[in-house]
């Protein structure tokens, strides 16, 4: 059996309805073919200091409807480039959900109200268990469809199709 995949990091907390314009606004469309420059603006309109503070492995902890709005996959991409290991949210908008999984960025749906900014978080990606190490609360996350788990398991849709050459349901 494969060992459980464990992620550990710090919580960066956001509210409800964080749109793709908060994550990476349309005014930076001219940087979309220059991803390192684009990534400097990640979450800028929600927390202007996020890009400096976030460290590899940290988590975005969000409320309802994270990632609503545009289909720009750059939103998921710049979050991944910032080193974020997973997004935990009460709910996630449909297109963003697909985009995150397609970029190999895990999204877990759980009751994030129990997590405070700065808390140390541990996520078991295999079981979906979320632990707030700082306050001791344990959360369970909702099920992800198998097709999405398979894509996530290959590190995203492009690597999935590169390997399998087609969808395998």
């Amino acid at each position: 059996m494969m060992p459980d995949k464990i992620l550990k990091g710090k919580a960066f907390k956001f509210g409800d309805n964080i749109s793709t314009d908060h994550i990476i606004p349309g005014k930076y469309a001219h940087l979309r073919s220059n991803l390192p420059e684009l990534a400097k603006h990640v979450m800028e309109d929600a927390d202007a200091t996020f890009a400096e503070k976030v460290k590899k492995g940290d988590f975005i902890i969000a409320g309802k409807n994270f990632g609503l709005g545009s289909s720009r996959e750059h939103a998921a991409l710049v979050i991944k480039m910032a080193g974020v290991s997973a997004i935990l949210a009460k709910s996630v908008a449909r297109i963003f959900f697909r985009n995150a999984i397609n970029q190999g960025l895990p999204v877990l749906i759980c009751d994030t109200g129990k997590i405070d900014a700065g808390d140390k978080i541990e996520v078991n990606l295999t079981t979906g268990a979320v632990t707030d190490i700082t306050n001791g609360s344990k959360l369970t996350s909702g099920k992800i469809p198998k097709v999405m788990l398979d894509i996530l398991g290959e590190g995203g849709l492009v690597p999935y199709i590169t390997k399998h050459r087609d969808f395998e349901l």
Partner: protein
Amino acid sequence: MGKTLSEKVLSEKSGTDARAGDIVIARVDLAFVQDTTGPLTIRQFKEIKHGSLANPKRTAIFLDHAIPSPNRELSNDHKFLRRFADDTGCLIFEGGSGICHQLVAEMFANPGDIIVGADSHTVTAGGLGAFATGMGSSDIAIAFALGKTWFRVPETIKISVSGRFQKRVGVKDLVLHLIGALGADGATYKALEFNGYTVANMTVSQRLTIANMAVEAGAKVGIFPSDNVTRRYLAAQGRGSKYRALRPDADADYERSIIINASELEPMIATPHTVDNVAPVNMLAGTKIDQVFIGTCTNGRLEDLAIAAAILKKKKRHPKVRLIIAPASQQVLTKAMRIGYIQVLAAAGAMILPPGCAACLGLHQGVLGDNEVCLSTANRNFKGRMGNPEASIYLASPATAAASALTGEITDPRKVS
């Protein structure tokens, strides 16, 4: 048990008995990108080394978001997209042709089609009975390569509309009311399916406006049955043979139903910074505005310009308000010029922009200053959407926008002559 429109289309295109909750793989009739999502899509397409497109003539690139290009980076993205079209033989629509969703309606979308686009407002084509939905670049890259993608078959919320609209109240007010009632995530992962007397009497343009905004409640699609209105539109666009009758089964299973009486609606407005933050225009009346923007895939069609022109005819915009008009396509612009709407709007002091997305997404052509207020006919008012997180955006109908352009403040269109 019968099927909803979404279940019918996904069953046919997947060759399965598709029911809400199932995961299916379905063929797509059109896959497209626009100029701000296209470059990433194409790099991903190249990365999988699949080689050729599954169907070049059903693969399209629209240059609409950044036209004419405001800077060298986007000009180089455009060059990259043109080169890909040259290399692969896919379709490309140059800057000035129009907004992708309007061109998809004018040239491609048919009842029962599946359309996927790297733009969230791909849902617009649901107004013609297509199962049309937005996806990101990876998904569209794979649809380019394989000609198919996976879908979770959505549960459906049935929206029944009866009654006649009051004068100067219309479908934009209806859809804002609906999003206010559902909430910005009230239909996430679900289909909205429209029916009823008022829907049967709507033009295709009006249906496209409603379908366009389905995504603002989180919906995967906003889909309409096809009927004689659809048939006549397709015939007028030169593809009458593509018409087919598509209706849900009488015993289809809906998650829930919402009933709206159009005659009870008044002009509505979405206030900053979410689309579900909806109030009657009257409650905001008197709010000072700096800019009015009439256009976009929501309200840049001929009927929208007709409404604005009727209100602005032989009048001038308020001296302190910038009025920006962007027709949704070249066809819309040409017809609006022939009828005289453009002349009326220009005489009223409007800036007429080329067919495209224009000021909607904060790239150019109407970026707001700090603490400025824009009243827009677009579909999104998120913080920062029009290029400045310190600005405010209100969303309303073309009638409310035109009336407010006259007075310099948010104005109920029923109160101007």
